[in-house]
């Protein structure tokens, strides 16, 4: 190893700054910070539940109605997703680390709670393309 490998170099700082800027750009676009802030209306969001790579449930957040529980099957067993009028969360999952439950309640577009071991994802997307899904169920 060359002696120079031990001391912090200009390129190191450049990489650190670049990654920091990319992370901030990600927060602004994907998280809706600042100019990309999502509209506050509750009606224009949809909860999408995915299992094993496919969409299994899509229902708009109406802001009214009751809290529902959805059992979503995965390779480890059932993940229980709770959809409230304005948000959703994972309340139980057979995975080891329970990161999906720890993630808590999600309500803003672009947010997601994912259980990778059980291949289940709950995400909030902007818009309400399929308003009849909830009625026809």
């Amino acid at each position, binding site marked *: *190893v*060359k002696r*120079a*490998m*031990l*001391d*912090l*170099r*200009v*390129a*190191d700082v450049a*990489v*650190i700054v670049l*990654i*920091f800027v*990319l*992370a*901030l*750009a*990600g*927060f602004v*676009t*994907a*998280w809706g910070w600042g100019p990309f802030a999502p509209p506050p209306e509750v009606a224009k969001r949809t909860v999408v539940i*995915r299992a*094993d*790579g*496919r*969409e299994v449930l899509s229902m708009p957040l109406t802001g009214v109605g009751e809290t529902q529980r959805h059992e979503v099957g995965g*390779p480890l067993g059932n993940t229980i997703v709770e959809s409230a009028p304005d948000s959703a969360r994972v309340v139980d999952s057979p995975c080891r*680390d329970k*990161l999906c439950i*720890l*993630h*808590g309640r999600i309500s803003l577009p*672009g*947010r*997601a709670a*994912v259980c*990778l*071991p059980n*291949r289940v*994802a709950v*995400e909030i*997307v902007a818009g309400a393309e399929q308003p009849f899904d909830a009625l026809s169920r």
Partner: protein
Amino acid sequence: VDANRLARLSLLAAMGIALHLLEASLPNPLPLPGAKLGLANIVVLVAIVWYGLRDGLKVTVARCVLSSFVMGSFLGVTFWLSLAGGVAATVVMGLAYRYAGGAFSLVGLSVLGATAHNLGQLAVAAVVIGSGGVLMYYLPMLLLFALPAGVATGLVARGLLARHPAPLGEPVA
């Protein structure tokens, strides 16, 4: 096969497995898949500097496969996540060391590796979930987390390589 090198690579892989298992037994610092320190990257970085990218990859693959045997996760989601992350980190650090080793210090290489690790994991996660939108949500948090994690593991590798610039038992080049 050079028996000395094989023995030393096995030793590095064994240390990688120990660090991998230690880290897997610690609680996650954030409720976020993939936000880990990446202690095993220390060993891989040492392997790359001592022996190059090809041997670094051997250490990474051995580490991921053997750790998954111990944890019972072989060919499961967790296994593919750690293998994709580990291989991505090794390739990026190995190429950066080979072609831009003069420009980066070990800390810079380690930060590149930590970032590549998270990107590799996210790619597998996106396939598992079948959605790139979820990926975009986790990306900024993981990028931000890769910085302190990469600096920390880079500093440890720096401490190791400052004392052992050449493989143990071999003369310093």
